């Protein structure tokens, strides 16, 4: 049994899964549009969390929020389920598939057989769409892969119940219905407003522009406070969060610039093209930061001088983002 689903590769798993499910319900939106409507772009410094021995940095909102916000703003009704054990979770998946409904699943990547081995960490917020079943094999549209893949029932159950932080507990989601005709322009505007608010106005020093500045200030002191080796590991973590977690390059900033191009047309506001260009330039500065950081990572740098340059670059990026989101807020109306 195979539900007709068009597989499209995307940069980021949540954007891709959402776009796939929306497409199956007659709403054909690109990854950048999903990401923008879902207010996915963010920055967070979470020193109280650890991944691979280093603190967590995030360039996006919490897992699941792109989907929730996009669904709400597009008038899409969704059903979400979690389970205590794999038997129930697989039974419910089968039931919904048999109704001809493709199902999004949250999974951990550690036991995901088709994932490149070097990327199989204990990371649990990965999204894929199941769109069919042939005997023991489930048909999977995992949007970070170029082509559709398959999973055995045992493997799918295993990844749906991976353990650790953000353990999925068989979390699955699907579209139950669409209320009226989605107003893409209105959704895009709402998405922009929220992203600007979060980046500019969250009163917590760990988030948004303030978060970028905080990391810049701290980074300068890491060699003294943490020692060379650990400082380099933390810097490496920033680069991984910026570039490895399927961000489309520069911590979602390029995806966001692509979104702003689409929004310019949708909203009939050519000034958003300027915002798009500004966001591209900002993305380029993040990439420059990653290049500088890589010298620290590879231990081919000039000590404090390089850390200072990296810190200065982060402060420059913070200033640029602050300016860009302020003007974006005005231009979007």
């Amino acid at each position: 049994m195979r539900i007709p689903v068009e597989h499209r590769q995307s940069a980021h798993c949540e954007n891709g899964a959402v776009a796939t499910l929306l497409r199956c319900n007659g709403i054909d939106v690109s990854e950048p549009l999903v990401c923008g409507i879902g207010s996915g772009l963010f920055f967070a410094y979470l020193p109280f969390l650890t991944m691979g021995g280093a603190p967590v940095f995030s360039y996006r909102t919490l897992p699941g929020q792109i989907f929730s916000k996009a669904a709400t703003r597009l008038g899409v009704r969704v059903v979400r389920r979690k389970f205590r054990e794999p038997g129930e979770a697989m039974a419910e998946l089968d039931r919904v598939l048999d109704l001809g409904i493709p199902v999004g699943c949250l999974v951990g990547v550690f036991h995901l057989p088709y994932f490149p081995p070097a990327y199989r960490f204990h990371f649990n917020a990965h999204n894929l769409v199941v769109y069919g079943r042939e005997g023991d094999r489930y048909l999977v549209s995992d949007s970070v892969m170029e082509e559709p893949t398959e999973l055995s029932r045992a493997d799918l159950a295993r990844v749906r119940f991976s353990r650790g932080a953000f353990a999925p507990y068989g979390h699955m989601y699907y579209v139950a219905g669409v209320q009226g005709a989605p107003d893409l322009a209105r959704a895009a505007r709402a998405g922009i407003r929220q992203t600007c608010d979060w980046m500019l106005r969250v009163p917590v020093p760990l988030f948004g522009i303030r978060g970028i500045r905080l990391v810049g200030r701290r980074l300068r002191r890491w060699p003294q406070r943490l020692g060379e080796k650990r400082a380099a590991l933390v810097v490496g973590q920033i680069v991984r969060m910026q570039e490895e977690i399927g961000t489309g390059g520069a911590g979602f900033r390029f995806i966001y610039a692509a979104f702003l191009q689409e929004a310019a047309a949708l909203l009939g506001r050519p000034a958003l093209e300027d915002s798009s260009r500004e966001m591209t330039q900002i993305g380029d500065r993040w990439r420059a930061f990653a290049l500088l950081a890589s010298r620290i990572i590879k231990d081919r740098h000039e000590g404090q001088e390089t850390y200072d340059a990296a810190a200065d670059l982060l402060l420059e990026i913070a200033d640029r983002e602050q300016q860009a989101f302020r003007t974006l807020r005005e231009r979007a109306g």
Partner: protein
Amino acid sequence: MEKDKVPQHDMGLLDGHAEVLYAVDEQGRYTQVHSTGWDPKNAALLQALEWMRERLEEARRRVLAGELSPLAFHMERRMMDPKLLAEYAGVSARTVKRHLDPRGFASAPADVLARYAQALDVTPEQLREVPAAP
């Protein structure tokens, strides 16, 4: 970033796959472009893998020196800590820690060892052994 500047620094980390980046074409319009890798990103991942390799070698050394049980080696090999292994094996973290000690491990019940083995993707026999070299 422009389309023709999208890096293709393939270090085999993507196992023959390519991921999607967003870059602008000649008209300044955004489009998806495949990338097989980028040097800073490869460097960061390799750094993380090297960090894990060092931890694994340290665990191996300590097991061979009799300071830790073989469980410590296999746990590290799967990048787990006691808490995560406990969750996968269905025991308490305290139990795992007890079994990281060589004497604790020696008196671990067979069914608990079987759970560890399954959680760590090894046989119970392999669980008791640690290769002397990588």
